[in-house]
Every structure is written in C-alpha cells, then in structure tokens.
C-alpha cells in the first residue's frame, strides 16, 4: 500500500493485529487509529478474522487422531509398512518397523498382509481402552450382529469362546482395505484381551489355512474362510493363541 505522511505503514497495521509490535510502537498505532476510524474498523475486522479462525478450528486440536495417525501406528509404523519400508530404505528397519512376518507370504499376499496389519493396529489401539474398548457392548449383542452384518454386507457373528476362557466384551466397526471391517473384543478372567478382526476377503483370494505373524508382543493368526478374512490378535505365546484360534474357527463352523 502507498505511504505518505499521515499514513500508517500497512505492515505495521498487520503487526499490530497480530500482536507483534513493541509497546511504544503499539501506542503510536493506537493513537493513529483513534484518529482514523475507517482504518480502525478495518483493523478490528482483521482481528476478528483471527479470533474467529481460532474459535472455529481450535477444536480440531482435541479431536482424537484417526487410526492411521495414532501414536501407536506411528511408533510401530503399522499404517503403511510397505510404503515406509520402501521410503526409509537403509535406515534401521527393525527399529522403525518392528514388524516381522513369519513365512514367505509378504510378497505373495499383500492384501492379506494389509489386513493383518490393520487387525494388529486395531488391537494395539483399542485393547488398552478402559472406558471405550468397544462401540457396542455384549449386552446389545443382537444389535451388534445386525449392525456389523449390514455394514459388511453378509452375516457376521462373534463366536463364543467360553470354552477357552474368553468372554465377549463387544465390537466395533472399522475402516478396512476391503471396505468396512469388524472387530470383536474378548477378555479372560484376568482381564487379558483378544481381538478378532474380520473383513470381506480380497476378491482374488481363495480359502487359506492359518498363518502366523508377530509384532512385538502381539501375535496374530489369520486365515480366510468362506467369504471372510479373519485375524485373531493377542499378546500371548503362539501356541496359546493357536489353541484359541482353533476355538474361533470351530465356533464359526459349528
């Protein structure tokens, strides 16, 4: 903007709006504005812009992070391990990724790997929740079953695992690579939690037997049965989880 005697520098007016002037200069601008009401109105409008922006968007700071941005996801790089792996190249992969697939399925079965990592991530994120581990509790099991079946487009039912010492807590709907996915959570008498993650199977996959993957403390058994992919996650030994995976499979195929 042009400058001539009696005219305030435009930059100073903005610095005034943003609170970036020292006290002496601020007092000068105050004095000038009181003699220039039109300019004072303009400055007030700019201040209001800042205030309204803050009021409108500050609540975003307190929104829960989406699953893929969750600190656990970042720390363990569950979110996009393959993309990260390609990007970080020579960096200490084991430290950053911390993800080890057992078996040679990584390259042959990327859709299943994606499903497994989503399942393990959802396990890590939701099992520590004290207040909201599930969206719909077991007391509304009928509603839970109807809701998830509708969203996944085919019947979904949590197997009962009482015979291996686990009781259903409830479940939730999650975004998955093959559309909506469901997570059922179980707990044993000591409070140890398991999750069963299921989604529609990738179109090009047939049935698949149990396979095993591990990340840190989380063990995962995953398989494809009929039209669904399943992943059972728990922080326990492989043999213990296998026993439960068998119970899940039998519960699903009575």
């Amino acid at each position, binding site marked *: *903007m042009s400058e001539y005697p009696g005219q305030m520098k*435009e*930059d100073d007016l*903005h*610095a005034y*709006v*943003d609170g*970036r002037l020292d006290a002496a200069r601020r007092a000068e601008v105050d004095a000038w504005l009181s003699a220039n009401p039109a300019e004072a109105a*303009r400055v007030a*409008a*700019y201040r209001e*812009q*800042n205030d*309204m*922006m*803050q009021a*409108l*968007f*500050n609540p*975003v*700071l*307190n*929104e829960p*992070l*989406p699953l*893929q*941005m969750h*600190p656990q996801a*970042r*720390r363990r790089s569950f*979110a*996009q391990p393959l*993309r*990260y792996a390609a*990007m*970080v190249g020579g*960096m*200490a992969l084991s*430290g*950053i990724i911390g993800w080890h697939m057992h078996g040679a399925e990584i390259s042959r079965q990327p859709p299943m790997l994606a499903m497994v990592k989503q399942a393990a991530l959802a396990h890590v994120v939701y099992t520590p929740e004290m207040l909201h581990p599930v969206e719909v509790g077991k007391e509304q099991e009928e509603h839970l079953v109807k809701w998830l079946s509708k969203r996944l487009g085919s019947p979904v039912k949590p197997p009962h695992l009482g015979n291996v010492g686990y009781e259903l807590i409830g479940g939730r709907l999650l975004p998955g690579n093959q559309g909506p996915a469901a997570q059922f959570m179980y707990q044993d008498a000591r409070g140890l939690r398991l999750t069963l993650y299921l989604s529609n199977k990738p179109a090009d996959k047939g049935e698949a037997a149990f396979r095993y993957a591990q990340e840190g403390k989380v063990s995962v058994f995953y398989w494809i049965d009929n039209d669904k992919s399943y992943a059972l996650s728990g922080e326990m030994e492989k043999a213990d989880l296998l026993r439960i995976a068998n119970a899940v499979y039998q519960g699903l195929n009575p």
Partner: protein
Amino acid sequence: MDSVNAIITEQIPRLRRYARALTGDRISADDLVQDTLERAWSKLHLWQRGSDMRAWMFSIMHNTFINHIRKKQLVTASMDDEALNISASATHENFLEMRDLASSIGKLPYEYREVILLIGLEQLSYEEVAQVLDIPLGTVMSRLSRGRERLRTIMAGENTPALRRVK
C-alpha cells in the same frame, strides 16, 4: 528414533488444524496430513536434529498441498484463476453462506489462504511463514494484506473489490 517419532507425533494436532482450515473438509484434510507424515518420514534424514520441527513439518505440508492441487486431488482457487473476478458478485443468493468464515476462506486463492492461516490461526511469525512457504518476507506481507482485505470483503458480502495483480 523414538524421540524423533515423538516430536513428529506432537505436531499432528496442529497439522490437522491447519489442514482442516486450508482444505475446508475433514477427509481432504486428513489425507493431506497423512501424506505429509509419510513425506516427513521419507525425508527424515534431511531434518537437522535440534532445528524447528514445526516449521519443517509445515513446509512439507505446503509442498504436499501444492502437489495435491496439481494432481487435482484438491479443487481450489488460485490467484491466477479468472473465476475470482466473480467471487463476491454472486453473493446475493448465498449471502448467508458468505457469512460463514470457513466457506469464505475457501473462496480465497490458496496463496492468500496459506498466509493468513499460518499467521492468524497457527500464529507463526512472518519470518517463519516466509521460510515455510519459501517466499520473500515482502511477499508474505503483501499476501497477508491482500488476503485479509479480500476475506473481509467476502465476509461483508460486498461487491467485488477492485482486483490488483499480485506478484
């Protein structure tokens, strides 16, 4: 790595706030944040430990944002768009909408939007904004001045202001 990881994670809420205001919708905003985070990871070796992570992340977000616009993942006005000439003249029928700050911000050319949001919302200093956007300080100040005035005009629902060419 964990400490760097924590420093990056610390920035996420602010990146989301800025992205939400910049894109105007939650899904585009979170896509922008996610791509920014992935870029940050891939370029982590370029970050100098001890330097300002916030400014570094915001500059990555700026580049990602520009890429999204170029790839048409985001539809947004640019200062060069002729459409701007009619920006405020169509206000009579959607006068109330024009009152809405979020949509008014969305009507600004993105070059203005970035500057007024980084300063007014994110409270970056003018020098930091110059660094983040990789433009001279004088350009920051002229975009700030024009952006705020344009926003004021749009929100007041007035007729199109006389357009000035901006470098």
